[in-house]
Structures are given as C-alpha cells and as structure tokens.
C-alpha cells in the first residue's frame, strides 16, 4: 500500500466532500460526524459518480450518497447500497498530515 495525497482540508471545506482521480482510483473524500473518510467514488453497478450530489437523508432517515446515473443510494455509515445489499463501496484508509489529506492505495 502506498500513501498518496488526495487533497487538502481547504478542498474539503467548501462542500464537506470532494472527489479526485488519483493513480487510477476515483476517491470520494468526505467529512461526516467530525471525521474525514474516503470511499470509492465508482458505483459498482455501472460505474457512475457516487459523490455527484451532496450527502442527503433518504426516506429511512439514513445519510446517503446517491449515484447520479441510476439513483442507487449508499449509506455514509458503511458504504453499503440501500437498494442492493450485495453492492458496497470500498472505504480507503485516510491519514491527515497538517493540511494534507492522504489515502492508502494499492
């Protein structure tokens, strides 16, 4: 695993989330419940962008990312898809060093 800078705290401040392609990974970095985390931004269904919309509460009250292409919802809590339990997003390990946000990539 290698540690690569994906952005800065400043990048995160504007919308509490951002996504960036880095070393053939599309990484969605977000701030939620006082924690900086990162999911894969690639919907495992057809490959759509998970982080196109901001985090929203769905009808069940879960905080979710909603893929732009087909409206699949993924829980912020664990990256699991609400509609299709067998689909889930990879969570990347995150490290904050000063103002820099780094993720561990294979």
């Amino acid at each position: 695993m290698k540690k690569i800078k994906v952005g800065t705290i400043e990048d995160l401040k504007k919308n509490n989330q951002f996504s960036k392609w880095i070393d053939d990974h599309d990484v969605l970095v977000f701030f939620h419940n006082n924690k900086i985390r990162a999911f894969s931004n690639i919907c495992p269904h057809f490959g759509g962008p998970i982080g196109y919309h901001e985090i929203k509460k769905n009808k069940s009250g879960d905080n979710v990312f909603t893929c732009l292409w087909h409206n699949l919802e993924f829980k912020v809590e664990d990256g699991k898809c609400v509609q299709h339990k067998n689909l889930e997003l990879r969570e990347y390990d995150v490290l904050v060093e000063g103002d820099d946000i780094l993720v561990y990539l294979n």
Partner: protein
Amino acid sequence: MKKIYLTSVSEAFAEYPKNLLLWNYWDHEHVVGTHFLHYRKVKILYEDEKVCYSEREAKMPFIPFYLNEKSLAVLENENRMISWHSAIFDLIRLKQIFQFEEVGQKCKVIRSDFLEVPNFLSFLQPMFNKIMKKWFIEVWNEDMPMRERRFKVWKLGFKDFKGVDYINDKNLNKNINVSRPYALKLPLPKITKIKDEGSFRKFKKSKHLGYGL
C-alpha cells in the same frame, strides 16, 4: 387534412466506441438521473434486445411544462435506430432516426427528426428546428461525461454489478487492459422498478458537485 413533416437534423461526434453510445441510449434507467433536468419519469412497458416501448414525462426546451409521451424505439441494426414518439392523445407524432457511423474507436451520431403536422402549421418549421437542435445538444452534453466516465472505468477493468477488482480488493495489484473491446448485451439488466411503477427523478433540488473526471 393534408399533413406535412417538420424536420430537423442534428449530429455530433464522440471519441468512444459505437457500442458505448448504444449502451447509453439503451440504458433507460439513467434518464431520470443524468437527465433529471429534463425527465422526471420513465416507465418501460415492454423491452427486448431490439425494442423498447416506454412512457416518459419530459420537459423540452422552450416548453414550460412536462409532456407525457409514449416512445417506441427499435434497433434496426447496430448502425441505425428508429424511435416513434406520441403525445397529447396522439396529436403530436414524432419520428426520429439515429445513424451511428463508427470510425475506429470513434463514432458519429446523426439524428433526423420528423414531426407530423397539418399543412397550415408549416410556419413552425424554424421553431421546430431550433427546439430539436437545442434538445439534442443539451441531452448530448449531459451524456458526454457519462460516456467518458463509463469508458474510463471500462478500461480499468470495470464489470457491471461488481466494479473494479483492484479497487474492491485492496490486496490486489492493478492489471489494466486499455485495449479491452467494449462489449454490449441488450437489454441491459434493470435495478429500479422501471418496469413496474416506473423510475422517477430523485430530487427537486441538489447541489451538483460534478463528476471529478
């Protein structure tokens, strides 16, 4: 009453394989997602590998309300698709012919539109042409990042309903095959209730943060 056709021809060029463009046209479930500014509902009444009959609620350029239309699309062959649209109790009848011309990994799309109207409405020709060209460009521009992204993840080894192996499993090394041919099998598997109650626009409002391509 004598009838005539109002006509319009639009074309555009994409640096993606023809099969990817066809995938995009036959992925009916993306319509209320990617094109949520223009469509709020799609329901498939029938679909097989060459035909799709659907109901749609669409808002066209310069028209301030949603039209409820029925659409029959037929993939005649891999280079030509025809769709017929009917709205307002069959008063509006539109035929569209799509031609796909592939050159290597690139593809040109030409869409010809024919709207049947009574002869006395022939003065609407310039307006029809303007609406249809604007419609084509707007929808094309909404689809382009989708196509770009789809091609990008495809080249990374993306598999439908699975994702990319090395992204899913952090213990795997990347094994990228950029020359992997783009495969298409119709009809595409569905994940929403688009064949039952329909697929609907998700939000009225959202902050759009972009694809991050």
